[in-house]
């Protein structure tokens, strides 16, 4: 691979310096099956070089304010549509002490009710549950609501002449459906999800057709760090060489591409099947081919990996191999899918806490949530989305596996061991970072202008919401 010394001039504009190795776009341009427009574009913007104040990670008062300012105004992934396929199916989504019953009220309409009785407040469904309801009846005194949110009954209505049942509909958060995901937003005044994501990133998401995938695996675990640290550990490939040395021989880490779209979406593209610029001259194409890691290596079968042909690059051979393998494993037609989509890692953040990975070999969704009782802890979930089989029969979405606080990702049934090991490496740093920030004499994070732009972009959105006045849900405004 050629390693030209370019784009490193001292007098470049701030943010314009790049790794001198071949660029992500140039790697992808050489592929046989060409990538679509959403892959072959760049959207980087320099956003400054100032330190990020660390109070946001370590101050409990900051976390408390986030619940009133940030979480009440932003679009959040609550569940997949496949979790609630039928009318009356529901799924309880919790964020901090907020809780919602997300339910399908008709074939095309989903609602999200504040999960609390309008009598004396009891949750209408326990957190962490799902099911099918013909009504939402409170377990305390039996007040009940229809699936459409209208009040069904008040026990002993003679004692409540002051309760007009028409005014006691279940309050709702706003709901939007996109790519098979159900999003909610507590703010009646927030922009639509489309406007929030913005036209460019929205076009990317629509192109992926994630509604045609199903949840094949869902694993969660709690970590001893603030939710934002947890997120930021996954927003750059800068850490790969130190944190995941086993991956670097087959990952274009330092020459990954970083982009931002509007205020709420950012991404990186990290190529696979190419050697890390850190290791140029140290590994051969055959080494690259021997060492790649898959999100789901069960597709490989037991066969092991063959030798490269004369003059063949690892990336070429992997594209051919992956196409055949995944078509068979998923019983899906991938003939039109580009090499890049088959191989590379595309990581998108949709503020505040959703990551989408539309690739085929790394087909994940991440969700991060603060621990409601501890600003130094967060809950991380990974979902693997596989294509729905060609015969169109959609498998049931996987039941979430919640790991214990000291368990390894490799212990989750169905988790690829190589991928589980990567997740463990990513998350082992987290408590050290949380504690280090608390111990430090330096009260700011220093960020790379390019490789850590997603972290800066993300924290800029945090700042935007935290500068707004608190906005708590108002049940009267939340009624239809």
């Amino acid at each position: 691979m050629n390693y030209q010394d370019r784009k490193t001039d001292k007098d470049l504009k701030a943010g314009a310096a790049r790794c001198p190795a071949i660029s992500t776009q140039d790697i992808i341009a050489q592929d046989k099956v060409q990538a679509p427009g959403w892959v072959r574009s760049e959207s980087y913007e320099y956003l400054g070089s100032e330190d990020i104040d660390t109070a946001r990670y370590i101050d409990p008062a900051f976390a408390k304010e986030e619940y009133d300012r940030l979480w009440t105004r932003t679009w959040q992934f609550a569940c997949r549509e496949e979790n609630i396929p039928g009318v009356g199916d529901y799924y309880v989504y919790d964020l901090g002490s907020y809780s919602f019953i997300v339910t399908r009220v008709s074939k095309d309409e989903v609602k999200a009710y504040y999960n609390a009785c309008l009598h004396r407040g009891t949750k209408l469904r326990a957190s962490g549950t799902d099911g099918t309801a013909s009504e939402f009846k409170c377990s305390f005194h039996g007040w009940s609501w229809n699936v459409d949110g209208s009040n069904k009954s008040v026990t002993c209505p003679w004692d409540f002449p002051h309760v007009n049942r028409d005014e006691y509909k279940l309050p709702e958060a706003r709901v939007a459906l996109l790519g098979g995901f159900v999003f909610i937003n507590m703010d009646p005044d927030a922009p639509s999800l489309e406007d929030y994501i913005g036209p460019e990133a929205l076009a990317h998401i629509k192109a992926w057709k994630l509604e045609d995938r199903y949840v094949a695996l869902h694993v969660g675990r709690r970590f001893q760090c603030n939710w934002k640290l947890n997120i930021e550990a996954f927003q750059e490939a800068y850490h790969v060489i130190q944190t995941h040395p086993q991956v670097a021989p087959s990952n274009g880490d330092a020459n990954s591409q970083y982009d931002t779209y509007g205020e709420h979406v950012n991404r990186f593209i990290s190529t696979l099947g190419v050697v890390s610029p850190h290791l140029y001259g140290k590994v051969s194409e055959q080494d690259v081919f021997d060492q790649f890691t898959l999100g789901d290596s069960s597709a490989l079968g037991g066969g092991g990996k063959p030798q490269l042909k004369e003059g063949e690059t690892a990336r070429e051979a992997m594209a051919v191999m992956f196409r055949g393998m995944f078509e068979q494993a998923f019983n899906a037609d991938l003939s039109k899918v580009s090499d890049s989509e088959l191989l590379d890692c595309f990581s998108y953040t949709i503020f505040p806490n959703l990551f989408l990975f539309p690739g085929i070999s790394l087909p994940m969704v991440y969700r991060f949530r603060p621990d409601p009782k501890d600003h130094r802890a967060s809950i991380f979930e990974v979902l693997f989305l596989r294509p729905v089989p060609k015969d169109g029969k959609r498998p049931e979405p996987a039941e979430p596996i919640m790991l214990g606080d000291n368990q390894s990702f490799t212990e989750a049934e169905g988790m690829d061991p190589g991928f589980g090991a990567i997740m463990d490496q990513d998350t082992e740093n987290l408590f050290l970072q949380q504690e280090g920030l608390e111990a430090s004499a330096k009260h700011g994070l220093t960020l790379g202008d390019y490789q850590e732009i997603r972290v800066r972009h993300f924290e800029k959105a945090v700042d935007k919401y935290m500068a707004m006045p608190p906005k708590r849900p108002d049940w009267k405004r939340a009624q239809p």
Partner: protein
Amino acid sequence: MLEAAELPEAQKKAIEVSGKSVLICHAPQGWFAVSNICSHANEKLECGRMKHGIIVCPVHGARFKLETGEAMSAPASKPIETFELRIVDGWVEVRV
């Protein structure tokens, strides 16, 4: 008591056995017989969702493991009764 062929996979049916309301469940995980009466407030489970070997009470949403009857979520805390079930010559038999 019940012809096995009458109950395709992913379906369930409540039957009366020796004065008890028993729910026969044909889950992808196998056949189970559990009490049809929720341990929380005695409502019937027969219209609840059955998925991943779990039955969900349709009234307040308590969830029970079909295999053991164990209560997995509020508002229930006590298990539901489970019964021995076998299939003999295409007939489902339950011991109550």
